[in-house]
């Protein structure tokens, strides 16, 4: 049965301020990406996660540094939440040699393997089975690492989703499947093509695991639900499906004005912006506005510096096209 997670715990004020700062850095980086695109400095496609920040920050806060994360083409927020620098991400988008993937991956494939951020994948659903593999490996190596797959609502209708859930349950793997349900696939409402109301959580029981719904714009609630799932996984009790309800602020990708979304719906969700919710909670807790302003200002500085540095970085080296095919660094395929 699908359960609803509340947000009962009160985290330390400093923690929530830190989370707000992280969310503001992500938001700022997404805005910078958008602006740089408008200025012709970001090419190719980008899928901004503005609006989804609470999921990345709340979930990552429940993880250990050595845990594993797998994300989608909409993955800037997870990369940053796991410690990729905004500069490295923006440089990647701007095709600079200092990009996190040396400009070979691009926006859709941000990766920081040294932070356990094992990649962003652009084939819907493909990375859920990979997260199983990382969790299986942790078990085999005798560590207690947990693996997390973040994915969209649209991914719940693809075969790999089902195969991944079943295997994770059968092998009792330490995986958390986190669905970022933003109500839309590209331009089509998920409700119009899905057989159940909660596309991820309502499928958990079919694979013998708990399915939990959480407010994906409430960073405290996300953290709490995630901590429960992570504890369960680390204790050896198996996987969980966590479905976080959220909304994207931009269109699906850079070419999408998102006119298919009702204005009232957009408004309602913008009012529930995860940064607004976090600020409101801090105010309720009596945290002085100045403290909040300070972290937001610091976030803005971080982003501005990152954007400048990325713009100043040297372009990608065309010769890099011929490296990293094989483990020996090269690309030789014949004699």
């Amino acid at each position: 049965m699908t359960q609803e997670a509340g947000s009962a715990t009160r985290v330390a004020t400093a923690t929530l301020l830190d989370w707000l700062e992280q969310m503001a850095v992500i938001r700022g980086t997404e805005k910078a990406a958008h602006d740089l695109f408008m200025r012709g400095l970001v090419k190719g496609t980008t899928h901004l996660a503005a609006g989804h920040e609470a999921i990345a920050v709340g979930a990552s806060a429940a993880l250990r540094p050595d845990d594993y994360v797998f994300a989608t083409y909409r993955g800037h927020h997870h990369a940053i939440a796991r410690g990729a620098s905004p500069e490295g991400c923006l440089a990647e988008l701007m095709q600079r040699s200092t990009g996190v993937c040396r400009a070979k991956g691009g926006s859709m494939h941000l990766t920081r393997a040294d932070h356990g951020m094992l990649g962003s994948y652009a084939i819907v659903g493909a990375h859920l089975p990979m997260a199983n593999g990382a969790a299986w490996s942790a078990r085999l190596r005798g560590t207690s690492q947990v693996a997390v797959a973040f994915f969209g609502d649209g991914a719940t209708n693809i075969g790999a989703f089902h195969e991944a859930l079943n295997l994770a349950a059968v092998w009792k793997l330490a995986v958390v499947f986190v669905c970022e349900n933003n109500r839309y696939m590209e331009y089509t409402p998920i409700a119009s093509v899905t057989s159940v109301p909660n596309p991820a959580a309502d499928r958990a029981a079919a694979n013998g695991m708990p399915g939990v719904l959480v407010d994906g714009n409430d960073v405290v609630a996300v953290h709490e639900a995630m901590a429960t799932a992570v504890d369960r996984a680390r204790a050896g009790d198996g996987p969980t499906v966590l479905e976080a309800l959220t909304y994207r602020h931009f269109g699906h990708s850079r070419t999408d004005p998102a006119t298919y979304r009702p204005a009232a719906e957009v408004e309602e969700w913008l009012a529930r912006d995860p940064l607004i919710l976090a600020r409101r909670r801090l105010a309720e807790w009596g945290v002085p506005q100045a403290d909040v302003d300070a972290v937001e200002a610091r976030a803005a500085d971080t982003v501005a510096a990152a954007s400048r540095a990325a713009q100043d970085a040297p372009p990608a080296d065309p010769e890099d096209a011929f490296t990293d095919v094989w483990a020996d660094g090269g690309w030789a395929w014949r004699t």
Partner: protein
Amino acid sequence: MADLTTYRDAVSDGLARELRRDPSVVLLGEDIGAAGGVFKTTVGLFEEFGADRVWDTPISEQAIMGAAMGAAMTGMRPVAEIMFSDFLACCWDYLANEIPKARYMTGGQVSVPMVVRTANGGGLGFGAQHSQSVENWAFTVPGLKIVAPSTPADVVGLMASAIRSDDPVVFFEHKGLFASKGEAAPPEHVVPLGEARVARPGDDVTVVALAATVPLALAAAEQLVEDGISVEVIDLRCLVPLDMATVLGSLERTSRLVVVEENPYQGGWGATVASIVADEGFELLDAPVRRVAGENVPLPFADALEERVIPTTGKLVEAVRRLASY
């Protein structure tokens, strides 16, 4: 001169013509309905033909292909869209094992008159998982017809043949061509499958091209005029049926062949063309057979890197020059 139109609009035009002509034609795919397709290649179809002819699907490539196959076996002519050709990998079983074999393994009891449309190719900075040219995958499978048009008129004319075909057809629309313009197709335009087009006649070197490498080859041919090299450009249009008669006929005059293909060199369709020529056309050849193909690496994101690994006019010019002076 005739009206100009884009390759992109030609796709929806080609689909609309068949939807109007034959009530058994029906479309399905992700975001193809009210949204008009992520490449805007189905714009207006939902409005004109309604929800009973244009079906939005979940992100379920196997369910899409299976639905199309089952419908094709039972009296419909479905046209399934797989958004990016890279995603054919998510339903490859249907193209590799089911659709092309159903007629044969039932001893002719079953027909599968369906079309799979998909956006193919690179050059737009979409990175390793959204930029591939995968017509070489389909080419490994007997039982599939394979179409890859290079002009708006051919899009319409070949779409008509593909949809009317009683055999399954994979229809590759090249992403890099969507914005390109050409003459609009006249009414009732039908281009038969398996007939190559001499896109530019020439005497010195034959260049065999497909889809986006056709304009590239034409640009190279134009540049090579300055070198005094006369290039014949053949637009294959289809990989199956493969019009080798036109290629071998051209070689009777030129004796020199360059194949220009976007997919990687290893396992590329150009190798099959080259191997047929090296066999049946051996005596025609005055020089080695050359292939300008994608490099054997995944596709990188950055423009400057992608340019290094996919065929370009410059690379083709260079290859033809060297071959002409062989």
